């Protein structure tokens, strides 16, 4: 696992600088088709813009020739009516015709994703089922802020929220879909390349909206299965000083670490927090120092966050907790 992560970290380092969250570097079926659509529209748009501006600049100068009204009316009819109508009709048809295929049903796993202030709750291996549902299915294998999906399959993401509206957006893979309280929306991701892709919350959801990132790891199918199986196991290390401090200082009221008495359901499940590449919803790389910093001055690292700062704890306890968390792979 560790080696796998190191290899991926390399990818993150490269992809993290450019393109990891860009719709210009597509790695999913929808993103690819939309980008093609965009380039064609951009080309057409630039051509139209140049033509319109050229005509109007010519028309607006103190020219020697004054055209007849008949010419003018023809300009209105052909350039103002006929041409736009034809182009728009073609574009509309293309845009509409793309949609059924993009919304084709999934043939891969179903993953429940709940947008919460200000992180993403993830559950693998949930029962989806067709039709309208109003609440996310319960159970499954919990995780957060990081979603692994298999290459070559259409994975269905079930989206909802227990608090306010969020929007799930991983630009290299697909367009966005809102997570709306009281509704479950479906978004199907069909990745075309392995790699790590960054996403964000796209609907303003409160002060820490800018810090609600996520990562999507696209891996071969067998690796995906292994990952989910690993995530389903309880924590590797369940005692020691850090675990003690974690339980004594109330962390367990909000966080779950399976295999320990910690079973809070408010914040992210930390059972395998060290196996994830970031903490704080895509904010900081997973290191002991960053764990400690996040615990020590949460609202400074992530302004607006719901978790209180634990800066009042003795430094050695903070470090102990951070060290323990770093062992939770």
């Amino acid at each position: 696992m560790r080696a796998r992560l190191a290899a991926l970290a390399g990818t993150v380092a490269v992809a993290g600088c450019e393109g990891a969250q860009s719709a210009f570097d597509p790695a999913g079926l929808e993103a690819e088709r939309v980008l093609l659509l965009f380039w064609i529209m951009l080309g057409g748009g630039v051509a139209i813009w140049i033509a319109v501006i050229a005509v109007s600049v010519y028309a607006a100068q103190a020219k020697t020739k004054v055209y007849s009204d008949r010419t003018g009316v023809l300009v209105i009819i052909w350039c103002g009516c006929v041409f736009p109508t034809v182009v728009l009709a073609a574009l509309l048809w293309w845009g509409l015709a793309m949609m059924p295929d993009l919304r084709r049903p999934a043939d891969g796993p179903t993953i429940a994703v709940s947008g919460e202030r200000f992180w993403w709750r993830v559950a693998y291996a949930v029962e989806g089922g067709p039709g309208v549902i109003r609440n996310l299915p319960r159970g499954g294998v919990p995780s957060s802020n990081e979603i692994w999906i298999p290459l070559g399959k259409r994975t269905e993401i079930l989206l909802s929220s227990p608090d306010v509206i969020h929007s799930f957006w991983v630009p290299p893979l697909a367009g966005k879909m809102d997570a709306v309280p009281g509704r479950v929306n479906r978004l199907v991701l069909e990745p075309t390349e392995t790699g790590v892709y960054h996403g964000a919350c796209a609907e303003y959801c409160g002060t820490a909206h800018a810090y609600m990132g996520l990562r999507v790891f696209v891996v071969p199918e067998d690796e995906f299965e292994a990952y989910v199986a690993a995530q389903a196991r309880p924590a590797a290390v369940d005692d020691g000083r850090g675990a003690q401090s974690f339980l004594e200082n109330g962390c367990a009221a909000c966080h779950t670490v399976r295999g320990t008495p910690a079973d809070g359901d408010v914040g992210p499940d930390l059972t395998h927090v060290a196996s994830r590449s970031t903490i704080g919803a895509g904010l900081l790389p997973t290191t002991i120092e960053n764990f400690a910093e996040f615990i020590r001055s949460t609202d400074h690292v992530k302004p607006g966050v719901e978790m209180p700062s634990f800066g009042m704890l003795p430094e050695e306890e903070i470090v102990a907790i951070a060290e323990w968390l770093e062992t939770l792979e």
Partner: protein
Amino acid sequence: MQVFGKTQDNLWTLIAAPAIWGFHFLFSYFLAAYRCAPNDDIFGTRAAIAVVTVICLLLILLIARRAGREWRTYGGAYRNDQATDNARERFLEFSTLLLAALSFVAVVFETLPIFVFWDCR
């Protein structure tokens, strides 16, 4: 035919064609929303929208034909900027004709989705 006689145009006849577009739009939207809320099959919905579309297009054509005929029969100019009843009438008819053409195109646009989407996804 007397239907195409000298009717008096006004602001209401002017907006009749876009109002038909509005009706068609709301009908399509509400029907689809109602049938899709429980995720029902929408073949019937699409058929109903198709029927309403045909009716709306015919009505718009009728409006266009009425306005266009009168406009052509009684002068048929583009500018219609004289201070006469005739010019005012021709202006309204010509504008009605243009709005009917726009409404026609808009209704056709509005119907395209029923040929593309076969279910409620």
